């Protein structure tokens, strides 16, 4: 569905959120899914479609300036968090769970810190803090995005034989991710959303403070073979959650950075258990 939001210049734009094949119903508990750099709502299809047919509202967003959503692509995690808050208001959602992947996990974390009790659950999938991007990759995302897409696909994949995935059996997830990366990049002719997203990850410095302000249970859902956001890179957040006495859990799935389509069943099981 599309929601009318306003950008930083108070200009209206249409923001898209996939609702899992079910009509949005504000009476149901809502889960907002936030994608990572050079992705869109479609990376969550299996998990969102299931939850939408099992008692939840889902809003799997295309971040502003990405694919179906208008507006300006967010230049920082904080700016993207404002978008999520505005989306909830526009949809009439008082309380929601947040699920974010990679860059989206930082956006979810920052949003949860700002909205406090409005956020009921926070699931950080393939997360890290700080989420530093190597200078070589950052540069390639700006100056040679085709090469950088090849690089992130190699780093993001853990297997040459993923189980049946979002397009069903016969999906070559390596190629599907690469095609999606190219499509998202091409969807915004004004801004290189690849570099802008990576820069936002690299710049984000408020992770530990944000976690401290979070009031809801937190799930860390990590890929054991993740080379983009290694489980080790999430440890600072996990340690902080422990030190701050947060209600948190850690689930590791036996795959790489794209848990949602390399380990769709394990990812769904972890989210189901966390959200219900």
């Amino acid at each position, binding site marked *: 569905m599309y929601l009318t939001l306003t950008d930083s210049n108070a200009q209206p734009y249409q923001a898209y959120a996939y609702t899992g094949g079910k009509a949005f119903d504000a009476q149901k508990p809502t889960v907002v899914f936030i994608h990572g750099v050079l992705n869109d709502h479609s990376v969550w299809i299996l998990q969102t479609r299931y939850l939408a047919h099992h008692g939840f509202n889902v809003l799997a967003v295309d971040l502003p300036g990405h694919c179906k959503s208008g507006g300006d692509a967010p230049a920082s995690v904080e700016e993207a968090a404002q978008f999520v808050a505005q989306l909830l208001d526009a949809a009439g959602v008082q309380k929601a769970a947040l699920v974010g992947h990679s860059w989206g996990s930082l956006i979810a974390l920052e949003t949860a810190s700002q909205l406090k009790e409005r956020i009921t659950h926070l699931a950080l999938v393939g997360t890290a803090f700080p989420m530093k991007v190597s200078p070589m990759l950052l540069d390639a995302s700006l100056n040679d995005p085709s090469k950088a897409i090849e690089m992130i696909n190699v780093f993001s994949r853990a297997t*040459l034989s993923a189980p*049946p995935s979002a397009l069903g059996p016969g999906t070559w997830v390596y*190629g599907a991710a690469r095609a999606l990366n190219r499509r998202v990049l091409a969807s915004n002719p004004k801004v290189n959303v690849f570099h802008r997203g990576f820069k936002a990850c690299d710049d984000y410095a408020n992770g530990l403070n944000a976690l401290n302000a979070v009031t809801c249970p937190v799930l860390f859902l990590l890929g054991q073979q993740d080379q983009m956001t290694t489980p080790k890179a999430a440890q600072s957040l996990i340690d902080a959650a422990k030190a701050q006495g947060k209600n948190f859990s850690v689930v590791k799935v036996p795959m790489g950075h794209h848990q949602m389509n390399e380990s769709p069943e394990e990812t769904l099981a972890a989210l189901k258990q966390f959200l219900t």
Partner: protein
Amino acid sequence: MPGYNDPSFDTLALHAGATPDPTTGARAVPIHLTTSFVFESSDHAAALFNLERAGHVYSRISNPTNAVLEQRVAALEGGIGAIATASGQAALHLSIATLMGAGSHIVASTALYGGSHNLLHYTLSRFGIETTFVKPNDIDAWRAAVRPNTKLFFGETVGNPGLDVLDIPTLSHIAHEAGVPLLVDSTLTSPYLMKPFDHGADLVYHSATKFLSGHGTVIGGIVVDGGSFDWEKSGKFPELTQSYEGFHNMVFSEESTVGAFLLRARREGLRDFGACMSPHSAWLILQGIETLPLRMERHMSNTEKVVQFLASHPMVSRVGHPLIESHPSRALAEKLLRFGARGAGSVFSFDIAGSRAQGRAFIEALKLFSHLANVGDCRSLVIHPASTTHFRMSDDALQSAGIGPGTIRLSIGLEDPDDLIEDLKRALKAAEKAAS
């Protein structure tokens, strides 16, 4: 397996889509000869049917052995996924039936396999889908043939049997300007000799019966989606961009930004038309693909030697392979094929300088070459297209496809090239004698 680099073609040919079986440890891909798959619960069953969870339900829709083949070919082509079908013709029909219905129009190359020409010209017109055929190298004709209801451009990477190389970059550009995808039949080149997605094609299919399986043992097809065509932006494909009552009111382009075609092709096309591949066939094709790079190298080197022999023989008036400098597609072959003109495949035609009777004498004198209707076998094959594969085409259509009454088509296999040349030499001698 953390730390791997972008896998190369030869590695993907062996490993894409498969790991040792987690239950038994079997290293080779198991053949899952089962019609159906047990549900964990009623909820699991409902979730599988509604695409909330991924998995196998019934082997007409998907099967684990077929899924390995589909991933492997998609990997070799650089696509997002694939669907295995009962034959190459089934793959072509599935592609077309997914994208259009009655009232639609296709622009296609004249240089097509006879079976494809039959489907487009005779059969689909009965279902309200018209095709305009244009010469593959007449770029203006492709552009001029576009109508408001055009939904697809279609050609073969190298046309059968004249080896006209399709100008994929130019034709895909024209197709995209018209808001339609370019589908190519890549059977004769296989992904080893050309990767059409790299040149702008949107959908690729193979008769896997040929080089992919490579041993003349199995009938099969496979269609691969490059994930590059933007169905929503085109606005010409409500089949993919609007709610479909026939499948849970799904909007396929909303479910998958890049995979709408594959979603509908499997969920509607395989489900309703039912032209699925047997898992046993999938396994045989996988066996073939594992040696595809090695076989294609030998096909190419043998073909080079045979072409050289024929080109210098006085009984041969023409050899239709881009290895010959005067071949009309020589420059395009050098530009688009991985190994240049050498990589234009091992299926080509030549003309005997003589009568139809001499042509028959030639075929009947061959001993190693098998006279049959197939190509891409490990054994060398021969046929007379005008009386067999292209029999239903009119003389004009034959001429447009580059086929004369005395044209002989060869498919060069993996035998010792000296033995093949000896066989051809003997048969040409017989043809020469038949003149008297």
